[in-house]
């Protein structure tokens, strides 16, 4: 890739990550949420691969760690649901609701958003990575 692309994508990746996190955190206040934010994060990693090749991306986040993180995300979501048993029902919203229009409100919803964002972001990255690695290893054969 050319220098121009590399420099630009370096900036965009950082912006993408920050934007994704913003969307995840404000999921209960503004449009967006865990899923959309997660995809944005995944996209910024995908951009990293496209611009710098897979080694650069892998040095930031290895495949094994990524798939483990994805697992942990899914597990945490289930655990948040299970915590509801403490309050009496599966997926009961147990935390204090807080006042609307604030960042820390709405009980478990932002937590769920964060966990889903983690899961989706890393998970989609894993999908892309396996596809890329497959193609690379095919060429080497």
């Amino acid at each position, binding site marked *: 890739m050319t220098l121009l692309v590399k420099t630009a994508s370096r900036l965009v990746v950082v912006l993408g990550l920050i934007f994704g996190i913003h969307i995840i955190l404000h999921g209960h206040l503004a449009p967006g949420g865990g899923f959309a934010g997660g995809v944005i994060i995944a996209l910024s990693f995908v951009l990293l691969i496209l611009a710098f090749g897979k080694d650069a991306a892998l040095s930031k986040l290895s495949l*094994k760690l990524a798939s*483990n993180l994805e*697992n*942990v995300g*899914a*597990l945490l979501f*289930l655990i948040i*649901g*299970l915590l*509801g*048993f403490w*309050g*009496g*029902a*599966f*997926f*009961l*919203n147990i935390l204090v609701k807080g006042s609307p229009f604030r960042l820390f409100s709405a009980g478990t919803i932002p937590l769920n958003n964060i966990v889903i964002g983690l899961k989706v972001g890393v998970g989609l990255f894993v999908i892309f990575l396996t596809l890329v690695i497959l193609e690379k290893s095919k060429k080497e054969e």
Partner: protein
Amino acid sequence: MLRTNIIPLFVIIPLLSAFLISLLGKYLKRQFIYTVSNISCFLLLCFSLYGLNMLRNTGSNILVYKIGGWAPPFGICLVFDGLASFMLVVVNLIAFFVNIYSLGYIEKYTDKPKYFTLFFLMLTGMNGLIITGDLFNLYIFLEVASLASYALVAFGTDSEDLEASFKYAIMGSLASLFIFLGIAILYGFTSTLNMADMARIITEKTGSRLIPFVSVLFIVGFGTKAALMPFHAWLPDAHPAAPASISALLSGVLIKTLGIYALSRILFNVIGITSGISAILVFLGSLSMLVGVLLAFSQTDLKRLLAYSSISQVGYIILGIGLATPLGIFGGLFHLFNHSAIKSLLFLNAGAIDYAAGTRDLRQMSGLKEKMPVTANTSLVASLSVAGIPPFAGFFSKLVIILACIQKGYFGYAFIAVVSSIITLATFMKMQKFAFLGKLNEKYNNLQEVPRAMKFSMVALAVICVCGGLILLPGLNFFLSDAANVLLEGSRYAMKVFEAAK
């Protein structure tokens, strides 16, 4: 702890074990995976039996669990009634034995953690679909189960596996889209997604032309999942391509849960069955019964033969349920139970032969009885049972279905059922003759019987095949009749759910 709290556990346990196996399976020993999978399958079986018992002790025969504490029309509720508990017992029973079997069988494949993860995800999908009381939630769990099964069909990653899986995935997704369209139209019509609420609103708005259209959409969608005759093309490819333990699960319970259970739940309890729809079901059932068995007769690949025979047996079940008489539904559900055990056993036998002898071609094997007595005998039991020879369970269920046909005056359909039963007998006799009787092929002189775990589950399933007929006894009868009653109640289902939710 409230007693109803066990209801969500049917989803939580397999999901949790799927996550745990996938997360930790890479680092810990193989023993760990086996322990987790055994424990969680055993727990599921225990809970489903306990749930059956619990349901008997509650007065109204229905339990509703409100997820997140939201009352039924607003949140999602789980409904645990006679039919659901019946299906849960069937699914978890088969899954338990298949799991034990796969401990031995899966040695042939690489990457065991992924296999078990997908296995449990499929189980999650099926259990979730059975207990849900919400239409869209049903769709989601349908997708979980289907996606896991697409991946499992391709698990061997040979070119045939991949192709079968692609075909299955395309047809399966098409079916899902039809189901989704049906759900969307129903939502536009009733503006609710809860099945009980929807049933209530639909009974209020009678005489609409929308309902038959939606029923046809659902029949196309779920019929594809159940491999009813015009939509069956994926099954004979997909089932043989999967690992044998998965074929057993696919043929034994997946097509019944995803297809028959979901279809009958929606048609009977939500949108209400009409005589036209019932006639369509009976016709399709008979068609797949006859054509399936004819196609099965000409196969030489053992697993393809079994797969076509599955289509034919699904035809029996649909015929029974489609009659919509008490006896017909009773017979259909009874046959569903029997066929789950029988067909799983037959597929496990096929897997055992494949494992030991390395072939699935009937013409290549012969005289295996000498070397593999357990496989041969259990397979004999299953064959006789599926063909409907008197002392075995398959006989009683077929008898009930045929009687129900005659009772309703459908002599032609009863005749078709008898004829296909006879052809089934011929097919399985042919299979027995080729595979187990005759002179031992010299190639297989040093053949070994399969590992102990595989033997155990085959024998256990054979015992179920033999004893299945006992369910008709008065004391155990409730198992089936409770389930049949749920379907017969039709849209009174809505009222009961709302009462139970209070």
